[in-house]
């Protein structure tokens, strides 16, 4: 323990003086009224004990004084040692992805360093080694007093990309301050320089101080060189103290998984450790649920470990991310995009008998090509389509008119990918009869190239055009096509062609149908017509096609994908930072995460591509300690504790106690008074009771809602009305309603409200689409809206135009067919038996849904009337009804309340009371 202000301790010798002063000063006497004072006048006690402060009170005051003195001397427990040197302190912090794991402890270490610098009254300069969100290279902030720096360090956070040590070394080289103490808080890993963040790549964003020779090459140097250069720069800047922790968990990176036939192989990388360890990987779906869990064993000295996750394809397709269990960081999250989705492929042959024959069957090569990458299913068409299926491959299977064709057409139009192979049966199709599920019109018969009776040579396959999904695949020369079916020439043929033969005749054609697509290979799926199925090209082509399925529009590879959502340093998805720029699709596989390309999701919503931090990191290497540095273990160090404030608090408590004691000695503290005071304070802290409780969380209690019209007068009537109704319901029924809420469709979450009251103002305009959508959604999920035009009966003149307003607002709503509300309806018997349904006015019919909709418990989603019920229910603060009912009478008001109770019961219990109509019959039956 040290004292930050030791000279205050000089006050301690003054304590005996205080002791003497306190001792000779007696406490103030108690004061008493006494009538017989005349008899007391001039009396003196025989033994004169001097009135002195009791010893225990004296002790209490001395302890309090001692505590105050000690507190003012600012003692610090577990204070770190002094920093070397006498100049400014240069704090160098690695805040790349690898620091995120134990970031809170690093922040603590930073604060400890700041405390130590503050005590020594030294200025501190800060250098963070990772480029910030704007992509600016690391630079040293000018030395400033610790108090000014604290807000900056408090805002430090780990970045989702590696630190740029080379650029930091350049910044360090420009540091010339004698007596500098360098404190380096490293992440213990050697990182490659970040491309695109160094001064060479981003002119203007970097600091202009770098000497012209260094920056261009530095970022691209290898990890070890980058670190050794950085360490040397640290050494040159001053006396280095390195903060490391051996206890901290090693920084781990979750690498993108390998997709295998029936499983996903997850991989975890770390700098090799002397001891083996385990890491747990969670596979999560888009809603955050963990669908699978895999434990990865990282053996001693190994830099990488893997484990496999096996999931049914339907579940596997739902995975959106893999998460490494443990402290959150950008490196512990791998976002999965379409590349990792499993797409079940269904196979169906035209000739079922020979389809499976080895080397000759029509499905033999397809199965061999697809099985390693996808799940292949074989069954008849109906069985295949019963489960989710992404791709259906028909090998030489004509589709005659009939049920099969219709089902298949429907499936394709809903987004299926149908791949067809030609063959003898397809070629035999009668001329003029077009198969609707062919991408192009075919000419009858087939075309033979080469062979005994032909002059033509078997044709090779032309290079794929850039617009084709097969673009980029290399075409081996030995692939030859002997026979094919021909497409009817047309102007659009070339745009439907994805692959063609060397002579230009199409080999693969396609056409979109609805949301789906049809692809036709103009050759057979076996080696009869071509040796394409024997080549590796066949496998690649099928993989591309399968990857295209399920709605992924094939994007040409050079298209620039804009960042959509990016990860922050803790692995949370958020809006991309300003410096983030788009990325060509074909570079995603090779891009290292950087401020310009932070890890995250890129591209349009239907074709997101994931850039993962772990995708292109070189093998992780631990760094040696900085040469010549003093090593401190920041994790083992106990954080500093300033003892001053607690001591001062203790002194205050003692002094408060002393005050009570002094009052007690003077007789001013009577137990009864104290009791009353405590009781009054307790009562004052009890919140007042309210008739209707107010609670801000709408999910915790049942409450009614009213739709805000914007007319303050109308809204206040709605509010008062629903308050009155809630109160009435609370008094009369077992339902407990709390204060009603104003709601705005589209803005408020309506799902908490069983019943919405909606007064239609005469000037109401049509609903915005999102409002209408919210209300429709509310009604479709069992909500009830009471629409009140307030113009029925005697109120007809009060709200002119409400009827047309109702038409306007109702346009966007899905309102079922309506019928007048009769006494037979459940609403008329949900609690009270009602003959009519008055509000403030009475007369006109009330309209409810005509047909009983069993799906919604026969509850009418909308009730329309014009009786101005809210005004009848309204109760003001004095408990009176401010609005007279017309034609009037207490009976009408009571009936209005009863209708309200029935409405609430109807909203809460549905058609429960509808069953009551059968009671007489049941009773009669029971009696017999």
């Amino acid at each position: 323990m040290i004292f930050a202000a030791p000279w205050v301790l000089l006050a301690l010798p003054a304590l005996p003086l205080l002791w003497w002063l306190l001792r000779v000063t007696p406490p103030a006497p108690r004061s008493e009224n006494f009538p017989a004072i005349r008899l007391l006048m001039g009396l003196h006690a025989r033994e004169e004990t001097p009135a002195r402060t009791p010893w225990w009170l004296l002790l209490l005051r001395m302890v309090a004084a001692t505590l105050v003195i000690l507190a003012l001397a600012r003692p610090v427990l577990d204070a770190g040692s002094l920093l070397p040197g006498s100049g400014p302190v240069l704090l160098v912090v690695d805040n790349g992805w690898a620091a995120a794991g134990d970031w809170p402890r690093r922040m603590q270490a930073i604060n400890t360093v700041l405390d130590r610098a503050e005590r020594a009254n030294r200025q501190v300069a800060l250098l963070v080694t990772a480029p910030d969100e704007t992509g600016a290279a690391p630079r040293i902030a000018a030395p400033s007093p610790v108090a000014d720096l604290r807000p900056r360090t408090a805002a430090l956070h780990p970045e989702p990309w590696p630190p740029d040590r080379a650029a930091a070394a350049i910044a360090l080289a420009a540091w010339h301050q004698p007596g500098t103490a360098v404190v380096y808080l490293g992440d213990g890993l050697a990182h490659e320089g970040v491309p695109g963040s160094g001064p060479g790549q981003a002119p203007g964003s970097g600091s202009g101080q770098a000497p012209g020779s260094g920056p261009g090459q530095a970022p691209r140097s290898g990890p070890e060189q980058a670190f050794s250069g950085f360490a040397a720069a640290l050494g040159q800047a001053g006396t280095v103290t390195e903060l490391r922790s051996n206890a901290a968990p090693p920084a781990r990176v979750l690498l993108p998984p390998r997709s295998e036939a029936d499983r996903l192989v997850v991989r975890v990388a770390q700098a090799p450790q002397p001891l083996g360890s385990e890491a747990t990987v969670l596979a999560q779906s888009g809603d955050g649920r963990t669908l699978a869990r895999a434990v990865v064993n990282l053996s001693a000295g190994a830099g990488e470990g893997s484990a496999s996750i096996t999931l049914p394809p339907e579940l596997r397709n739902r995975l959106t991310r893999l998460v490494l269990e443990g402290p959150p960081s950008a490196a512990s999250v791998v976002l999965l995009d379409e590349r990792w989705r499993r797409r079940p492929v269904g196979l169906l042959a035209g000739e079922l008998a020979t389809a499976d024959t080895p080397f000759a069957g029509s499905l033999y090569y397809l199965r061999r090509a697809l099985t390693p990458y996808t799940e292949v299913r074989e069954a008849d068409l109906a069985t295949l389509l019963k489960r989710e299926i992404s791709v259906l491959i028909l090998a030489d299977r004509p589709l005659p008119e009939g049920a099969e064709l219709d089902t298949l057409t429907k499936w394709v139009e809903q987004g299926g990918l149908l791949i067809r192979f030609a063959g003898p049966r397809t070629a035999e199709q009668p001329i003029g009869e077009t198969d609707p599920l062919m991408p192009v019109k075919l000419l009858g018969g087939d075309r033979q190239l080469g062979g005994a009776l032909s002059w033509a040579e078997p044709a090779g396959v032309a290079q794929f055009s850039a617009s084709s999904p097969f673009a980029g695949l290399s075409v081996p020369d030995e692939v030859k096509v002997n026979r094919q079916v021909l497409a009817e020439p047309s102007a659009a043929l070339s745009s439907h062609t994805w692959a063609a033969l060397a002579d230009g005749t199409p080999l693969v054609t396609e056409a979109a149908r609805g949301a789906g697509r049809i692809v036709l290979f103009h050759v057979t799926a076996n080696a009869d017509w071509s040796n394409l199925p024997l080549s590796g090209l066949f496998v690649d082509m099928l993989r591309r096609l399968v990857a295209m399925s399920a709605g992924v529009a094939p994007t040409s590879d050079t298209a620039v994908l804009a960042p959509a959502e990016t990860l922050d340093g803790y692995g949370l998805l958020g809006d991309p930072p300003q410096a983030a720029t788009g990325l060509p699709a074909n570079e995603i596989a090779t891009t290292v995460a950087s401020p310009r390309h932070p890890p995250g999701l890129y591209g349009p919503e239907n074709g997101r591509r994931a850039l993962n931090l772990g995708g292109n990191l070189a093998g992780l290497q631990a760094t040696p300690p900085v040469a010549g540095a003093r090593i401190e273990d920041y994790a083992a160090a106990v954080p500093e504790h300033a003892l001053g404030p607690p001591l001062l608090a203790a002194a205050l408590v003692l002094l408060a106690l002393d005050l009570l004691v002094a009052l007690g000695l003077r007789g001013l503290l009577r137990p009864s008074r104290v009791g009353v005071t405590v009781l009054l304070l307790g009562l004052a802290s009890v919140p007042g009771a309210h008739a209707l409780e107010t609670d801000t969380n709408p999910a915790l209690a049942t409450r009614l809602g009213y739709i805000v019209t914007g007319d303050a007068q109308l809204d206040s009537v709605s509010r008062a009305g629903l308050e009155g109704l809630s109160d009435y319901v609370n008094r009369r029924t077992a339902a407990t309603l709390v204060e009603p809420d104003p709601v705005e469709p589209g803005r408020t979450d309506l799902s908490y409200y069983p019943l919405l009251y909606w007064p239609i103002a005469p000037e109401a305009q049509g609903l915005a689409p999102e409002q209408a959508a919210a209300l429709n959604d509310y009604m479709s999920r069992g909500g009830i809206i009471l629409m009140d035009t307030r113009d029925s009966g005697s109120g007809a003149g009060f709200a002119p135009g409400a009827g047309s307003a109702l038409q306007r607002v109702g346009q966007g709503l899905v309102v079922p067919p309506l019928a007048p509300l009769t006494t037979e309806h459940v609403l008329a018997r949900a609690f009270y038996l009602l003959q009519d349904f008055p509000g403030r006015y009475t007369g006109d019919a009330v309209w409810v849904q005509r047909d009983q909709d069993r799906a919604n418990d026969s509850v009418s989603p909308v009730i329309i009337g014009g009786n101005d019920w809210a005004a009848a229910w309204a109760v003001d603060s004095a408990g009176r009804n401010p609005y007279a009912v017309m034609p009037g009478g207490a009976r009408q008001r009571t009936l209005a309340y009863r209708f309200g109770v029935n409405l609430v019961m109807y909203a809460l219990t549905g058609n429960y009371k509808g069953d009551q109509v059968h009671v007489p019959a049941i009773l009669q039956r029971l009696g017999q």
Partner: protein
Amino acid sequence: MPSASTQAAAAARRAEALGARLPPLLVAAERVAATVAQGVHGRRRVGQGDSFWQFRRFIAGDPIGRIDWRQSAKSGRPAPDGWFIRETEWEAAQTVCLWRDTSASMRWRSRGAAVEKRERAGLLLLALASLLLRGGERVTMIAPDARPVSGRSGLDRLADALGTEADDDAGVPPHVSLPRHARVVLFGDFLSPLEEIQAAVGRLAAIPVSGYLLQILDPAEADLPYSGRIRFRGLEREGDTLIPRVEGVRHEYGRRLTAQQEGLAAICAAAAFGFAIHHTDHSPETALLGLYTALTAR
């Protein structure tokens, strides 16, 4: 807040209840204050009254109506010599003058006491008055413009008078003319200097009246149950005094109090007054019984 008259009536009922168990009080009186009020004290003289005193011969001029015809017939002598007039004894009521100390020192009670001294004095005064009125005596307050009261309704008037009494810090009865040979009962704490009290009692004895003096004390005044360092303040502008250690002076205080009480007793004995001490934590019945005994004894 009930009105003053309601309060007074309640105080009168309480006092009546207190004296309900005692028979009506007839003040023993050798000489009765000269009043014309009819009472129960025979004056051994002819006068107004109910008791037979003597027969005397008819003298011319006597009213015919006063002739006792039965006695006249028995005498057997002719008229007018044989006529006798029946005379009754003069019976008069004794007047009892009551006084209660209304100084500020009476309006005090210690922490443990239930009632103030003044309240207890009022209760005893009214209870005594109730007994006296039931006995047919006349009761008056010693106050400048007090009127004697008698009969049942007198108690309420007395209670009213008590309720509206003005505070007076003298500590001794005021100078007012009292009927001679009346009886006086004084309630108070009598903590004033003995000379003042002696002067007041001497003045009364010179009228002459005889009476009774009841010192009412709070238990705290009797025992001084305080301890420690206390600043005592007087209630009648006597000033204050700081006692460093009260337990040390308790004995001395007790001695002084006893001296005061002995002085009071001596003053009373000299003036033929009775004297008693009552503490407010004792039951008022005891004090009332003492008063009753003392007033009937002579």
